[in-house]
């Protein structure tokens, strides 16, 4: 059943959610919007296009502690770090980013090998998807339509939200979401017109214009394999690349990490931190050999991982077309253009 509230009452809604657990929602920061743990309900701000960093950190934080230990002591005395999670509400996630969670799920828990940290955080979370504003054009960098994602797709959300003027329409997509909405007493029932608006909006969202090229998963995967050795192509498209880690760190789908032991005095912590295929030490072997030293090799790896290896391994492209990598690239490298060119190559 469709519920509604007004944008004015957003702080009340936020406060309700904060009572029940941890609320993560977009907040205006100096460099743009980002998801933050909300301490003050008034901070929640839905007047954003999309966040600078993707919401993946909600389930895959940049730093995750695994084990605490003391140097010089037996390994038996090491203490695993337990996640004691309160229910988490991830509020205001754009459809393309919601889609990224389902793609990441395959990797972290979908193949029998389960990452307990990802899984626990996922299970504790209720996702409030939030449709893009269809009355505003998509941003130049975005291309989620190419990946088959609509601007108002509710799939993957527990609750899906659409804004209608000063109102916010909310619909439970999953049982969990529906149940939650019924508990939120400040929500009122929506009218039949609003119900129709909501359903139409979702359909309109599928035709919403972003950059588009026809891309069949299998074709692009194969094509990229075919041109693997075409180093002229890769050199050309990576000529400007600095091999920094911005694109991978803002990406909702990049999941590479490093495990490191960080000690101070005798106290050690084994933790996971984000890593990036762009970094020098990413493929550095213990022998000192590094199979991927050149910039073009690194960029090739990144693109092939998303559009080829991931398709081969998990049957789906590991990109949702959110455009963050392009938008934040210091030298304006555009993955969409590279994929387009690769198809022509």
């Amino acid at each position, binding site marked *: 059943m469709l519920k509604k509230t007004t944008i004015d009452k957003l702080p009340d809604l936020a406060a309700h959610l904060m009572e029940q657990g941890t609320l993560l929602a977009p907040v205006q920061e100096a*460099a743009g919007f980002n998801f933050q743990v909300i301490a003050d309900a008034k901070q929640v701000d839905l007047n954003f296009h999309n966040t600078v960093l993707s919401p993946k950190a909600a389930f895959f934080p940049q730093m995750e502690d695994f084990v605490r230990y003391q140097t010089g002591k037996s390994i038996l005395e090491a203490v695993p770090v337990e996640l004691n999670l309160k229910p988490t509400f991830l509020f205001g996630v754009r459809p393309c980013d919601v889609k990224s969670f389902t793609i990441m799920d395959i990797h972290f828990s979908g193949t029998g090998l389960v990452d307990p940290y990802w899984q626990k955080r996922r299970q504790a979370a209720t996702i409030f998807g939030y449709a893009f504003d269809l009355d505003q054009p998509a941003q130049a960098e975005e291309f989620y339509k190419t990946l088959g994602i609509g601007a108002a797709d509710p799939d993957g959300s527990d609750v899906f939200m659409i804004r209608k003027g000063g109102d916010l329409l909310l619909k439970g997509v999953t049982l969990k979401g529906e149940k939650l909405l019924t508990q939120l007493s400040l929500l009122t029932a929506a009218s039949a017109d609003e119900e129709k608006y909501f359903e139409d909006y979702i359909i309109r969202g599928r035709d919403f214009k972003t950059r588009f090229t026809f891309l069949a998963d299998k074709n692009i995967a194969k094509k990229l394999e075919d041109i693997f050795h075409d180093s002229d192509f890769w050199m050309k498209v990576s*000529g400007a690349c*600095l091999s*920094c880690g911005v694109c991978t760190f803002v990406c909702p789908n990049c999941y590479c990490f490093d495990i490191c032991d*960080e000690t101070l005095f005798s106290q050690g912590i084994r933790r996971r931190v984000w890593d990036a295929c762009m970094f020098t*030490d990413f493929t550095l072997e213990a022998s000192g050999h590094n199979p991927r030293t050149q910039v073009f090799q690194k960029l090739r790896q990144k693109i092939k991982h998303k559009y080829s290896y991931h398709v081969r391994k998990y049957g789906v492209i590991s990109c949702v077309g959110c455009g963050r990598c392009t938008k934040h690239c210091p030298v304006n490298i555009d993955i969409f*253009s590279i994929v387009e060119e690769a198809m022509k190559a």
Partner: protein
Amino acid sequence: MASSFKQIEDKLKTEAKKLLKTGQVSVVLAYGKGYDDNHPMPYIAKLPSDADNIVFNEYCTHNLARYLVRYPKGTKIAVAVKAADSRAVIQLIQEEKVKREDLILLGLPAYGMKNSKTGEIIDSQTTCGLYNPVLYDTLLGEEVHGQPVVSPYDVLAQYEAMDKDARFEFWKKEFDKCIRCYACRKACPMCYCDPCFIDQNNPRWGEKSPQSHGNLMYHLTRFHHLAGRCIDCGECSRACPVDIPLYLFHKKVAKECEEMFGQASGMRIDDKPVLVNFRVDDSDKILE
């Protein structure tokens, strides 16, 4: 009268084509079209026909000196340089990373460059505030004159006037934002170390996790490594996805180095970088 971006672009195309055609250089580092007009990209022209793809507009902020060290010794390269970029080239020559005779510097006298992220005009607030290249072989346009001469260090006054505790809080907040994507060092023409000290495991200078202390160690050490070398192009700050105003710290260190050692970075080929140099009569006062 300063030349328009279009005029400079045309000259750049012509010059690049000529240099590639005559074989004077094998590579021209310039700018090319990006995914839209506001987002041009560094572009590497290798064939005379590539020169047609060259663009130059107010968003061509990237410091192309960054790419010089990628090429094998002896490669003849023409590189398009704006004011700060030319200082980076001079600094690289001082450090013997590139040779003057291998380079043809195509000077771009450019006023009114804009940050493509924010649209803001780039001036002495965030860069060295020069508009004409310090060193070039060919100047592709009229020199920029008549712009107000502003010290690139004026912007520091408010931060220097801060109480030290407030200043610490300011920087802590900024450095805590850091996600360690290393765009700053990768965009920097002077950061050519590979691996960077912070990438190393033995010892680990700063923790890899993006926490306050590791971030602080990374940034402070990097400021020291760039002391007397940073040419204040501001690329690090423009590259930063979380908008840390690194340029402020770099400016401060540059200002101190200039005052203590009497030498600005990247101004003369024959200078020696100040931190691998000394004067017997350096004053002990600099330690106070």
